[in-house]
């Protein structure tokens, strides 16, 4: 009964395909459509819903009610926005590189959508079940950078260029801690296959046992966040993912108080909507891979599968919104320093921690490994973090400050 939804959905797909059993070519087309279309549509729907969620959440954090005019609780607001975007004039700057200006939104949407395809949404719900899905995901998501560069460079606007530059620098820098914190998971799961990574996050001896309590907790306690290296890795991953997705507090490429809207400055109308959607969907994709790697994927008690994945995805996004409502934006130099001098060494250390944990688990069993991992591992990480932040502090100048214009 556990994977009920997923099984039903897979069955539904088979059922639809069965109609075309006599026409192999048509069947292939239908199969491809079934793999892609629902995915694309549901993520676009999720995008619309998330814009509403974000506006509502931010509003409540800032003691405002948020959108509440269109539909119940303003739920139809995204539709109204979409119509508005569609009706707006599409302005292309006179001296812009017209081809690239046109291509950039498409280039952003393509990797975002492909990245979503690599996510194991449920048991058997996997659009691109490649053997090396995870590394493919990171490869594809690095293409975002190119789209942002295109948008920023082709606009021929200084703010766009600045935004593009910031985006490229930031995305390159944060990709490294992102991948490194994922490496620990891949190492422990022993596979690059997303489904296997998900499967590794069950306590396998408990899940099949038939004991209700063990069935219940076996699907929760096996998640990687509940392991010392996984917890630390998840935090590093999440921070890096925020930067990869250009989300606050790393939204420097679009810092509206500094450079208008960064690479989006010269976009309007539907192209802007597409760019915006691309950013959200790549944020979804990154959050989704975070769920897969650390939060147990579609594992969960009672309704394992799609419902759990969706729940986790939206909770992760809610945390992103929460962070956006809380933290101020970083400075550019702080941003790069944070990635290279803080997150990166810690992520490497975390890989060692994972290896240490693995060794302990083999040698003395899970309980001792957990204990030692949490105690020593976290102590080590904390110490390293403190040491790094000490090391990275800019030197304080203790000489007396001279105010030249005052004297």
């Amino acid at each position, binding site marked *: 009964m556990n994977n009920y939804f997923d099984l039903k959905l897979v069955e539904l797909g088979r059922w639809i395909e069965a109609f075309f059993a006599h026409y192999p070519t048509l069947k292939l087309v239908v199969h491809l459509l079934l793999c892609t279309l629902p995915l694309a549509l549901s993520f676009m729907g999720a995008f619309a819903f998330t814009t509403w969620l974000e506006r509502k959440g931010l509003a409540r954090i800032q003691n405002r009610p948020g959108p509440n005019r269109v539909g119940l609780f303003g739920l139809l607001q995204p539709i109204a926005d979409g119509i508005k975007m569609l009706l707006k004039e599409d302005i292309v700057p006179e001296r812009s*590189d017209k081809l*690239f200006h046109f291509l950039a939104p498409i280039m952003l949407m393509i990797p975002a959508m492909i990245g979503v395809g690599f996510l194991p949404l449920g048991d058997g719900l996997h659009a691109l079940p*490649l*053997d*090396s899905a995870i*590394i*493919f995901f*990171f*490869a*594809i998501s*690095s*293409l975002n*950078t*190119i789209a942002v*560069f*295109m948008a920023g*460079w082709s606009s021929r606007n200084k703010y766009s*260029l600045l935004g*593009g*530059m910031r985006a*490229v*620098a930031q995305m*390159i820098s944060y*990709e490294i801690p992102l991948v490194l914190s994922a490496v620990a998971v891949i190492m422990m799961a*022993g*596979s*690059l*296959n997303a489904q296997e990574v998900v499967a590794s996050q069950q306590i396998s001896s408990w899940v099949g046992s038939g004991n209700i309590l063990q069935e219940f907790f076996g699907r929760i306690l096996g998640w990687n966040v509940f392991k010392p290296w996984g917890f630390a890795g998840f935090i590093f991953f999440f921070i890096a993912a925020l930067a990869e997705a250009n989300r606050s507090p790393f939204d420097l490429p679009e810092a509206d108080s500094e450079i208008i809207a960064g690479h989006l400055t010269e976009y309007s109308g539907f192209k802007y909507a597409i760019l915006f959607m691309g950013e959200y969907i790549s944020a979804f994709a990154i959050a989704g891979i975070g769920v897969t790697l650390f939060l147990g994927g579609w594992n969960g008690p009672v309704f394992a599968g799609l419902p759990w994945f969706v729940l986790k995805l939206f909770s992760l996004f809610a945390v992103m919104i929460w962070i956006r409502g809380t933290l101020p934006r970083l400075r550019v130099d702080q941003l790069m*320093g944070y990635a*290279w*001098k803080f997150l*990166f*060494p810690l992520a*490497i250390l975390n890989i060692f921690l994972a290896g240490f944990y693995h060794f302990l688990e083999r040698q003395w069993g899970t309980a001792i490994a957990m204990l030692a991992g949490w105690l020593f591992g976290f102590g080590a990480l904390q110490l390293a973090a403190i040491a790094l932040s000490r*090391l*990275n502090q800019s*030197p*304080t*100048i*203790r*000489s007396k400050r*001279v105010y*030249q*214009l005052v*004297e």
Partner: protein
Amino acid sequence: MIVAFYLLALIAVLGAGLAITLRNVVHAVFSVLLFFSALAGLFLLLLAEFIAAVQVLVYIGSVGILMLFAIMLTTNVVGDPNRPVQSRGWVWGGLAVVALLAGVLLPIISRTGGQSPTPLSDFNPSVKQLGLVLMDPYFASLGVIALLLTAGLIGAVVAATGASEADQAKTVPENRPRFPNN
């Protein structure tokens, strides 16, 4: 399969050709990226997913971006369209390319005799096997490379940390510019 191969091959050749003929440097870099992605597609056709992923990750995600980042800051990306590009040595260059291509292709053709080899029946490529190969016969070289990279990274971190506290505190106050009327 065959159609996909020819399509990707066409894109690859087109991308490579455009990369050397386009006058706009940014466009040229993007056609190189097009070439890279077509190559990744070809790897995928060979069922070498991992290589394809690495192709995308390293060549498009890093090398391409690096080139773009350098070019982004140049003011004049187009150059003078009226001045024709002339290179005396193009004949030699062409010959070198042909020689290289022949050097790579001829042995292969001679070995297979112009016939495509029969597909392997128990071919099961996986990342696991790749990992096993890397960890078993090539472990030593892998270790050396890893060590080298780690040393490089630590060096980079040290270089990025900057001057020590004492150094900076010493130099800053004396070097302050003073207003002439003060």
